[in-house]
């Protein structure tokens, strides 16, 4: 039974690849307070209770009902230099995330977010295996450290396999998409998510600017 489903999946895979489409575009990110240096580095900030990345980045995903993959790769958010690395992580529902401690001191990562409440307790640097949490519900998860109050991390749990994080300019590209009518969404901060209806044609590239 298990073998049959695996075979079926393998058989379907080329067909999906054949029908693949691409979605690219630009998310109008809010102006950054920092100089417009195109840097890979950013952090999570809270302003008036709104969490966002700084310099701004957006998470863009395609919403629809897609088949669940049987296995998802384990992701990782490390604690390094008293910060979460990466600060913002987008994952598909059902993904496990490791929280390795790469600092020289204890961390206690926890979340009170309704999406996922967990408390890893205190663990020393380099603990093996690193504490792992399974995120089984879509939504935003705020990561905090009980010991280091300033540490903030975000995990956006998405019910889709098609998602990406824009670059500092807001450009994104989603490839290998199935054809059909979907909604493309862009998460800008904890309060603002923009969306756009798209009709993806097979083997076509669609350009969408958000909002």
């Amino acid at each position, binding site marked *: 039974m298990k073998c049959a489903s695996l075979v079926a999946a393998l058989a379907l895979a080329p067909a999906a690849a054949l029908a693949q489409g691409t979605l690219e575009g630009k998310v109008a990110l809010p102006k950054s307070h920092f100089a417009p240096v195109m840097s890979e580095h950013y952090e999570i900030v809270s302003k008036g209770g709104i969490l966002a990345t700084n310099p701004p980045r957006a998470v863009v995903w395609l919403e629809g009902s897609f088949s669940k993959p049987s296995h998802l790769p384990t992701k990782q958010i490390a604690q390094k230099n008293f910060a979460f690395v990466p600060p913002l992580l987008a994952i598909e529902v059902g993904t496990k995330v490791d929280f390795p401690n790469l600092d020289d001191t204890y961390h206690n990562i926890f979340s009170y977010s309704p999406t996922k*409440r967990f408390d890893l307790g205190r663990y020393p640097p380099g603990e093996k295996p690193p504490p792992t949490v399974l995120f089984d519900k879509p939504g935003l998860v705020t990561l905090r450290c009980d010991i280091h109050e300033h540490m903030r991390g975000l995990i956006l749990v998405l019910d889709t396999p098609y998602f990406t994080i824009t670059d500092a300019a807001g450009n994104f590209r989603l490839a290998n998409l199935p054809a059909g009518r979907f909604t493309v969404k862009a998460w800008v901060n904890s309060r603002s998510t923009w969306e756009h209806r798209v009709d993806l044609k097979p083997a076509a590239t669609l350009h969408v600017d958000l909002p």
Partner: protein
Amino acid sequence: MNRAAERRPAGFQRFRTKLLLAMMLIICVLTSLGIYVAQRRATAEAQARLEHDFQIEIAALDRLQNLRQAAVADRSQALAQNARIHAALEDNALDLLYPSAEDELRDVMASGTTATLHARFYRFLDHRGAVLIPPREISAGRLRPNEQRRLSQNKLSRTMQTGYLARRDAAGNSTVDEMIALPIRSTETNEVIAALVLGFKPLEAVGRGSATGMQSGILVDGKLQLSGLEPAARVEVGREVERDLTQGEGKSHSLRRQINDRPCLLFWKRLNPHSNYPPAYEVCVYPLQQLLAHERRLRWKILGAGGLFLVGGFAISEFFAGRLSRPVEKLLVVSEKNLGERRRAEAKLRTTAEELQRSARFSADASHQLKSPITVLRAGLDGLLARDDFAPEVYEEISALVHQTYWLTGVIDDLLLLSRMDAGRLQLNLGTVDLTHLIEQWSDDLRALPETEDLKIESDIPAGLQIAGETDFTALVVQNLLDNARKYNRAGGVIRIQVRQKDEQVELHIANTGRGIPVEAQPYIFERFHRAGTDDVPGHGLGLNLARELMRLHGGELRLLRSNAQWTEFVAIFRAATTPARDRG
């Protein structure tokens, strides 16, 4: 001395008593003043001491409260830094707020902690100031819903707030909790996102009111929590303080009131100035019975001291009155003695004066009594002279008798004048007398006499010489001297009249030739009725005496200058008129 004391005059005793009374009065006034001031001061000091005690206790309470608030503030700071509480508040996980805080506040809630830091309850307020209800399983301290509502604030304050919550504890006893509301700020925005309210047992100063029976409590929402007082008294104290609060502005005050008919001193002080919570006041009740008893004791002490002082004062007054009056007593005795002597002297003087008066009056009376029969006699003799049926020698006899009556009249006039002088009744009307004119007048009269036709009168008188004196008596002196100069002159002799002015004096020299006055008789010529072997010369021996007395009465003098075989010279010294120029003008 003893005799003097025995014979103390009544006036002296009165003086002594008055002195004693005056001193006693002063001492009494001073003593009562002293008692009054001492008592007032003692009362004021006792009240000030109580007020001072109260202020000290309140200050100690303040310090303790500040310490607790500082400790609690630290705790809230830590709490606000706490990531879990932040997460609960910021990540919309309020259900996790109390569980997150439970660990953090466990030590504060533990009954084992220091009494001052043992919280009875705690509650969180959300960003609107409303109370967040703790889940059932969390031991955040039991509060009834209506009590819990009183914790809320209309608007979250940015500063620590203190309030007092009157409530019933688990056993149903009324109690007061001190609430400290601490703002919790967002570490990201620094805005107040919540508040933590901690309820403590109100602080009590250590050892307060132990000796004075003082009781203290907290007045909040118009109700006084003071377990030591019976309910009626509690209500009354509360009402009194509330009434005082409505009248006064200040943050503290003291007042004296009857509580349950017992005098009490009340103090109150606002416990939570500048608070969003309803005002609460620390109220102290000092029963004044002890203080009043102390005051009574003090009053008796002061009165006793005053009494002792009075007795001492009395003794001292008595002593000093005696000491002070002794010189007066001596003076009195001496003056008494002097008075006796004076009285005796006065009586003697009076007797002498009376005798003198009597003798003078006798002379005057005698003179008057004598003059009348002489006048009658002369009239009779004149009548006889008028007849023409007597022999010629009879007429001579009668003429001699008439002459004798004139002589007698002269003697009597002189005697009358002398007696008036002796009696001091002769009044001189001093004026200015033109001596030159007077002498000239009298010398002219002298020349006109038949007896002086062979006499030579030499006069050397400056014109218009004025003297001070009475005209009649001056004339009498001049007449007397000139008459003597004529009577005692020899036949064909000389009368020399000289007047000289020497400064304030005018000297009248009258000299005559003729036999002189015998040397042995010269000292007596001015005595009355002295006639030194001059029986052949008419006279009665009063003239010179009278002249000298008159001169002396005028402030002048009459002296015999010389008397020898050739010349007999008298000098009369007059006082020159003080302002002759004016008088002459």
